[in-house]
């Protein structure tokens, strides 16, 4: 049984956020811009260390061995992370090598098999997003961390995404997604991050005189 509980205390962005998920669960992270949704996902992915608190996987500290944790996680960032000069298939090679998955199968489930040999620079924003989602499938990981997965997707692909989510949860996988629009995730729990008070927002770096910084 997978069991994740997060307790994290950072002074500004996230203040002692905690939750537990079981196999097959889904969690939607909502909240205003700048509330720390993406930051929370990056912590869960092991890309960022929390200033306080722990990420637990089946009761064990997941971030103690981040290489091992990476094998459990499929992370979809804000950016699609595609190399424009490479074809779609070449873009997925590295992820396929890491997980041992089959890129053709994953491209097929997202309806982009026909684009496999096109360079990524020729794809539309929605097609690139689908390619990035194909990489999530490819990772064959139990935990999906998706940062606004619906960005740029058309209605049909949203339906496709719903089937993929359902299949993943059926197999005991967990989906955690940030979103501003409704996602096809039935029975998903929602965690609303409160965001900041105006007075808490730190002064942006750009306000300092440039010469003092370098």
């Amino acid at each position, binding site marked *: 049984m997978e069991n994740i509980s997060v307790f994290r205390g950072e002074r500004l962005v996230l203040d002692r956020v905690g939750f537990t998920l079981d196999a097959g669960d889904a969690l939607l992270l909502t909240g205003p811009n700048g509330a720390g949704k993406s930051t929370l996902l990056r912590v869960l992915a092991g*890309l960022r260390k929390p200033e306080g608190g722990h990420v637990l996987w089946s009761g064990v500290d997941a971030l103690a061995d981040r290489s091992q944790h990476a094998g459990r996680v499929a*992370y979809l960032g804000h950016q699609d992370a595609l190399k424009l000069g490479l074809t779609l298939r070449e873009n997925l090679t590295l992820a396929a*090598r890491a997980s041992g998955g089959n890129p053709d199968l994953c491209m097929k489930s997202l309806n982009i098999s026909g684009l496999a040999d096109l360079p990524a620079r020729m794809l539309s924003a929605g097609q690139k997003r689908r390619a990035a989602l194909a990489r999530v499938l490819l990772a064959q990981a139990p935990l999906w961390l998706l940062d606004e997965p619906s960005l740029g997707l058309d209605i049909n692909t949203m339906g496709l995404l719903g089937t993929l989510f359902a299949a993943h949860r059926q197999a005991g996988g967990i989906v955690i997604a940030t979103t501003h629009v409704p996602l096809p995730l039935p029975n998903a729990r929602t965690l609303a991050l409160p965001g900041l008070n105006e007075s808490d927002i730190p002064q942006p770096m750009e306000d300092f005189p440039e010469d003092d910084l370098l």
Partner: protein
Amino acid sequence: MKFQIPSLIMAILERDLRLALRHGADTLGAVLFFILAGALFPLALGPSPELLRRMAPGIVWVCALLAALLPLDRLFGAELEDGSLDQLLMTGLPASLIALAKMMAHWLTTGLPLLLAAGPLAIMLGMPTGSMVVLLTGLFLGTLILSLIGGMAASVVLGARRGGVLLPLLVLPLTTPALIFGAAALDAAQTGLSWGPDLELLGAFLAAAIPLCPLAAGAGLRAAVE
């Protein structure tokens, strides 16, 4: 764990080489800079063969050092900007090995072409063919050192504003020992002295850089994605 470390490193290398071939102009830029900068010296110093022969080791080494700096800015910068660095880290490969793979890619796409171009440039400057072996051996070690130290510096300044300005300021002082020993070996070869010790020192420098630079670079990459 299904992944295997050597196969992942190979996959990163393959990807970078493929990208380097697709963007051929970027790749050739450093070599063209090397040749052009080297060709400027005879114009500036005058066509005295004796003078050029004496200065050739220094010219080749300094030009190679500066040319290798050019692509460093994009080595990790491009990966950070398009989110690929996150995905590289999510492959489960330790950050220091990702850095090592990128440094190897830098050497293959920049160091190796420089090495190939160094021979013709040295001949053009009138360097005696007898010291060519010393030049190429020294540059082989030197370009490897440059890729390692350059990659380390590139990952340290990653995400910093004006990283591009900071980069040469960080790399050049750290690589001066390589420059000194490399040029000294050539000097010794030209004057008929023993050049072995200089190359051995260069090798020792490389041996220290191979484990240390990827470790530091890995920490830099981790810090950059935070």
